[in-house]
């Protein structure tokens, strides 16, 4: 082995790396919002009393989950070129609709995990069905699924690296650019690996804490 390391390359390209990191975070956060929106709708529809809503939700979940994320991205980027969407938004749409199916499954399992007695007790004590959902079912479901949602978010951050393939200049894309400039392949990819590790660890911890302190605990107060 006669490879001499030059870790200084990471410092020289710090601005490019930070820019890529920021775009990775932006892409992941916007896609998470999209995935939560789609997933909560589909998850609630899967538990609906209307048959057509259940059928549509099940079809969406099965199709979105069983097609690779890369194909989702290409559908928006290569397939629907008539929409003339910027690459970033192709990434957001692909990631949101792909991850939304997983959110739907998480939401559904959370709603199922709340004992039926809770709902009955709420109704019996005079709450309206909507109030029962809002004050009794959702808070408990959210507490049950908080760890899964945090896991999903870290998965999303990692998945967002595939957006580099459709030319979104996020972190992985930047590493490729640095490599092209300097041939410092090892340093560039290990450098971004560390950044991903930091982002995934920090964000999953943060999500867990925010979910607990902002949503679950206030809802459990009187």
């Amino acid at each position: 082995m006669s490879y001499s390391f030059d870790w200084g390359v990471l410092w020289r390209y710090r601005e490019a790396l930070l820019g890529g990191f920021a775009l990775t975070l932006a892409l992941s956060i916007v896609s998470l919002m999209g995935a939560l929106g789609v997933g909560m709708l589909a998850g609630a529809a899967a538990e609906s009393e209307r048959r057509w809503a259940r059928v549509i939700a099940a079809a969406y979940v099965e199709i979105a989950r069983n097609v690779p994320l890369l194909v989702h991205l290409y559908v928006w980027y290569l397939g629907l070129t008539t929409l003339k969407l910027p690459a970033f938004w192709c990434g957001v749409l692909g990631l949101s609709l792909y991850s939304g199916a997983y959110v739907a499954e998480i939401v559904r399992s959370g709603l199922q995990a709340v004992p039926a007695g809770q709902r009955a007790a709420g109704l019996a004590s005079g709450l309206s069905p909507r109030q029962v959902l809002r004050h009794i079912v959702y808070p408990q479901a959210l507490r049950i699924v908080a760890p899964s949602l945090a896991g999903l978010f870290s998965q999303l951050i990692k998945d967002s690296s595939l957006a580099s393939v459709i030319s979104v200049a996020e972190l992985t894309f930047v590493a490729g650019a640095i490599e092209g400039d300097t041939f410092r392949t090892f340093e560039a990819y290990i450098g971004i690996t560390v950044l991903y590790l930091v982002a995934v660890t920090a964000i999953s911890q943060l999500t867990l804490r925010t979910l607990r302190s902002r949503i679950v605990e206030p809802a459990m107060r009187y």
Partner: protein
Amino acid sequence: MDFSVVARNLPYLVAAFALTLTTAALVIAGGTVTGVLLGLARGAGASAVRGAAMLYIGFIRGTPLLVVLFVVYFALPPLIGHRFTAYEAAVIGFIAFIAAYIAEDVRSGILSVPRGQIEAGLASGLSRGQALRLVVLPQAIRRMIPALFNQFVRLLKFTSVASVIGVTELTGATLAVNAREFQPLPLLAFLALAYFAACYALSLVGRWLNRRYAIMS
């Protein structure tokens, strides 16, 4: 939509689909064996082995698959003085990646077997190794079926990422056809349908095995 572009290139696309399926089978087998070993190492008595396994699992689980493939294909060769072909790099990367996830499923599968089971095994005269192999593992594996098949379906989808480093499996081949014919919609529809069929079939196998062998507690 005009699907004649798919029909014209069908032999090429079918060959690429076959490559996707054989690659998936290869990395499922390799990833499961590596993952089980890693999962056992993760719960090993020796703290050095346990620590190394934990470090590896933590590192891989925080890294995107694409980056793992780039490291194996581009970054390692100058260090180890050996270049892998794109296909070899993809297979090594997939196995190294999924093993870390399977290891955690194996671990939680083993932990889900009640302690009384191993105690009963020991009390009836089995050695620790025998108790693990004959009592704990068979039950753990039956409990792991859904989690394992989730990873297998993920892996089947992940094989599409090999196209990024130049492997002409199904996704790579479809993009190559599109570069020549420029008919993205029918080609992408075919691509999605092919993956859907394969992944859905694999998950049905998982559900069937689970119905047949699951332990009801």
